[in-house]
């Protein structure tokens, strides 16, 4: 049985038995290459569930829709390792209880989709640890390497070009499973720390603040980059932050649900080579 079929039947059983009230998964999209999230509550609808290498979206963020988990019942959700890490972070930040999240785990390896064993976020700790080790050794991608090789002025010009295209649609925020503040800092106008106008300065400020707020929290799922209508390589900023907290504080976001946030904790011997 393919993994798609296997998970369809699992989803069906879970719904039929009343173990979960909903399954959040993937369905066919508007074009053959696209997959879109689907929210299934009836066992007979489970045949709509799709699972293949095109299922890239991190679905964890949907669990935070106001009131969805407030009845204490469980929801099953298709999650990759990034998704499971998201659950851990959301649990660590008290946004949900991991006991309410029944995981249908999968991993995409090139064009193949593989099962990941486990039901609860805590069952995936080995896989997450392996990801951390891999991430430590991972070289920057081509564009990131190119940027690192530039001087400051060139980098500034690069980002100026990218951010000049930003239209402040906040799709990146909407798509990000970590952007769950009841009120985003940009929506606070007393004082207005981030310029709301969509000029390059305001766009730069917005994107820097977003990257800072995600430092030590971003799981690099890529939702923001895929959502950006003008194709700004947002992942570069987030990857830079993830690399920094990993190197400086040995912090890999979402290891488990008790992990303290990188920016609300400290060690007395944290590195400080840049401080005069």
């Amino acid at each position, binding site marked *: 049985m393919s993994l798609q079929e296997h998970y369809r039947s699992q989803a069906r059983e879970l719904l039929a038995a009343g173990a979960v009230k909903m399954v959040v998964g993937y369905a066919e999209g508007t074009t053959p290459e696209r997959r879109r999230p689907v929210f299934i509550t009836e066992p007979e609808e489970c045949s709509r569930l799709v699972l293949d290498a095109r299922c890239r979206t991190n679905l964890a963020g949907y669990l935070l829709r106001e009131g969805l988990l407030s009845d204490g019942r469980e929801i099953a959700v298709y999650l990759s390792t990034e998704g499971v890490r998201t659950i851990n972070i959301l649990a660590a930040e008290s946004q949900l209880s991991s006991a309410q999240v029944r995981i249908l785990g999968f991993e995409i390896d090139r064009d193949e989709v593989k099962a990941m064993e486990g039901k609860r976020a805590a069952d995936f700790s080995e896989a997450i640890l392996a990801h951390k080790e891999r991430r430590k050794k991972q070289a920057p991608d081509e564009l990131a390497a190119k940027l690192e090789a530039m001087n*400051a*002025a060139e980098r500034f010009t690069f980002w100026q070009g990218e951010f000049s295209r930003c239209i402040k649609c906040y799709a990146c925020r909407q798509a990000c499973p970590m952007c769950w503040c009841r009120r985003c800092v940009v929506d606070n106008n007393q004082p207005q720390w981030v310029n709301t106008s969509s*000029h390059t300065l*305001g766009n730069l400020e917005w994107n820097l603040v977003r990257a800072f707020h995600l430092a030590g929290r971003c799981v690099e799922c890529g939702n923001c980059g895929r959502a950006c209508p003008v194709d700004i390589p947002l992942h570069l*900023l987030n990857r830079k932050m993830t690399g920094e907290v990993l190197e400086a504080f040995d912090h890999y976001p979402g290891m488990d649900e008790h992990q303290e946030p990188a*920016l609300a904790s400290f060690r007395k011997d944290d590195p*400080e080579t*840049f401080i005069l």
Partner: protein
Amino acid sequence: MSEPFEPKIVAFVCTYCTYAGADLAGTSRLKYPSNVRIVRLPCTGRISPMFILKALQKGADGVLVSGCHPGDCHFDHGNYHARRRWTVFNSLLQFAGVPEERVRFSWISAAEGRKFAELISEITEDIRRIGPFEQYHALIAETGSPAPL
């Protein structure tokens, strides 16, 4: 002939250490360039990265962020939290193309009046050398209007 370039520098400091260090530089009558404007905060823990962005928006060519040495924080560990934020934000700014000479971080205790005076001189000199932050100024100009007070 145009006037020689005088940079605008904004310093965000904690009141217990660096602000007191700056006062000591004054009582010791040490001399340093007048380019720096000091914003006093209760603790480095209160210094938000937003302050740095706003200083740049107001046309600062350089920013200094400074507080108590590790272990000396009046609030026990505000500066340890600050250090983590600085590590991350410093790396982010550099990745975004803000030259590292423009945003500096330091520990200056209440006894280090001399270090304060010397550091301000050094930073001012560095920024005089690299010139105004024209790339950022161009973005400010593009906004069309000065930010509201």
